């Protein structure tokens, strides 16, 4: 009962946000620049949330998320550009194939821990990228020209679904098992949790949505090239999750929105752009090493505030 209430509230908020933005597009309050920015934010939120389930929930240190995004981007582009399939099919196949890629990468590498896993996922992501670089069918280094198909509606619906799936997963016995794996693998194992299974499940779900994000990405930016998916992209996604607060879903969402906006704003200050970005990053890490939200969720913050308010 309680949970389904949360669901309806979530859905209602989503519809309101969608409607408001849609109206603003229609009456021209938001031009294409902002439209694109909102789509970019949606894509980055999906990426952040899909990595959050791997790092924040399951505690598996993956820094190769851009690899799965690349898989999604290329698969969807092949679907629409080469095979002439509709975009929605491209998105779904992108998710599925990226999930399979996640499975193939996850099974061998998730036996590793911590930094070793990190470097291993980074390696896999680079391998994926190099494969695309060398496949002429998808244009090699020159990349693939892709039609523009991503709209605000596609992007927003995808975000809503991603957040819903991942938050529903987290708030279930399966999500708790992942949390247990994050907290203490040995104890989780001893409590009857198949740790390998849950690590792989989380990784596959994460990859799936990274693939979806890749599909939206590919169809928003007119062209995809392997360099767009290098380890710097993976770091960017990682930074959303860490800056937002490891283990906090709303934290990763907020960080993704915030950083995307900051980054777009700083476009006009090319000389100092990355300097400011890196200083912000370092300062946040130094003064809030557990990220902006820590492990708290937005609703916890409100709860505390409310309680504080009523007492006062």
């Amino acid at each position, binding site marked *: 009962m309680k*949970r389904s209430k949360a669901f309806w509230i979530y859905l209602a908020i989503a519809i309101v946000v969608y409607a408001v933005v849609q109206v603003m597009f229609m009456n021209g309050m938001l031009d294409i620049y902002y439209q694109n920015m909102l789509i970019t934010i949606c894509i980055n939120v999906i990426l952040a949330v899909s990595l959050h389930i791997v790092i924040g929930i399951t505690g598996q240190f993956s820094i190769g998320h851009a690899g799965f995004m690349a898989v999604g981007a290329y698969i969807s582009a092949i679907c629409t550009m080469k095979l002439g399939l509709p975009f929605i099919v491209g998105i779904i196949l992108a998710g599925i194939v990226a999930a399979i890629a996640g499975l193939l990468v996850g099974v061998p590498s998730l036996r590793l821990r911590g930094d070793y896993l990190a470097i291993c996922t980074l390696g896999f992501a680079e391998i994926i990228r190099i494969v695309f670089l060398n496949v002429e069918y998808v244009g090699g280094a020159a990349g693939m020209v892709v039609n523009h198909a991503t709209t605000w509606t596609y992007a927003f619906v995808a975000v809503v679904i991603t957040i819903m799936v991942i938050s529903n997963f987290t708030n279930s016995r399966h*999500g708790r098992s992942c949390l247990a794996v994050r907290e203490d693998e040995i*104890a989780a194992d001893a409590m009857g*949790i198949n740790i390998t299974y849950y690590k792989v499940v989380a990784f596959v779900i994460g990859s799936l949505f990274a693939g979806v994000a890749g599909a939206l990405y590919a169809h928003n930016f007119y062209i995809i090239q392997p360099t767009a998916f290098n380890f710097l992209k993976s770091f960017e996604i990682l930074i959303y999750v860490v800056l937002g607060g490891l283990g906090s879903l709303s934290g990763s969402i907020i960080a993704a929105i915030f950083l995307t906006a900051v980054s777009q704003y700083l476009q006009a200050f090319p000389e100092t752009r990355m300097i400011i970005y890196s200083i912000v990053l370092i300062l946040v890490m130094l003064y809030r090493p557990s990220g902006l939200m820590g492990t708290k969720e937005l609703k916890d913050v409100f709860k505390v505030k409310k309680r504080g308010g009523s007492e006062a």
Partner: protein
Amino acid sequence: MTNPLVKLENVGIQFGGLKAVQKVNMYINKGELVGLIGPNGAGKTTTFNMLTGVYTPTEGEITFDGKSIKGFKPYQVTQSGISRTFQNIRLFKELTVLDNVKIANHHLANHSILSSIFRMPSHFKGESKMEQESIEFLKIFGLDVYKDELAKNLPYGMQRRLEIARALAAGPKLLLLDEPAAGMNPQETQDLMELIALIRKEFDLTILLIEHDMSLVMGICERIYVLDHGQLIAEGTPEEIRNNPKVIEAYLGEEVVK
């Protein structure tokens, strides 16, 4: 006599050159409360680790409930009915007390990932059942007041209790306790003894426990095994063990016997 619940036959394990445990033969009957004692480094925890699948024995055979469990992964062992606590507390520190117990309860539920993602009725049914059962466990241990507290914020004694509660929530037939009284003062140890006696009755449990606190071991165990240098040196009732010269020499020392 009926078949024992768990049986170790000639079990041994080697780490590099070190034979940590050798040729251990042990059995525990259903419903028994058995102690495992021995000097530090004798191989007690290692024996637990072999029983629970953390280590695979390099020799010998382990049967539980009539089936071999040698080579099982820890989670498989737990799912087949053995659960444990750890010598150094290993709670899920950043999670709530309730979640700690629910996690152990995990394998007893059966709603699937998809049913959770799509919030199907089986999800709600499964989750609310888990929640109820977990709270029941917490009540028994007097932990229900702390249910939304993070595990790391509990006082030490409560953490030890939570470890036991969590192990119980995994629904074991055989419960392994590794030094449950470590770090407790005599008063707390007394309380713990009563608690162990209670849950044993309540859940129809078989218990094997490691402990250095002789007041506890001698007070509640029905039978005791003594390990030294990886080998069993004695087996018997508390009375027999207390007076066994080999055990006195290797482990108890003169004072305790007095």
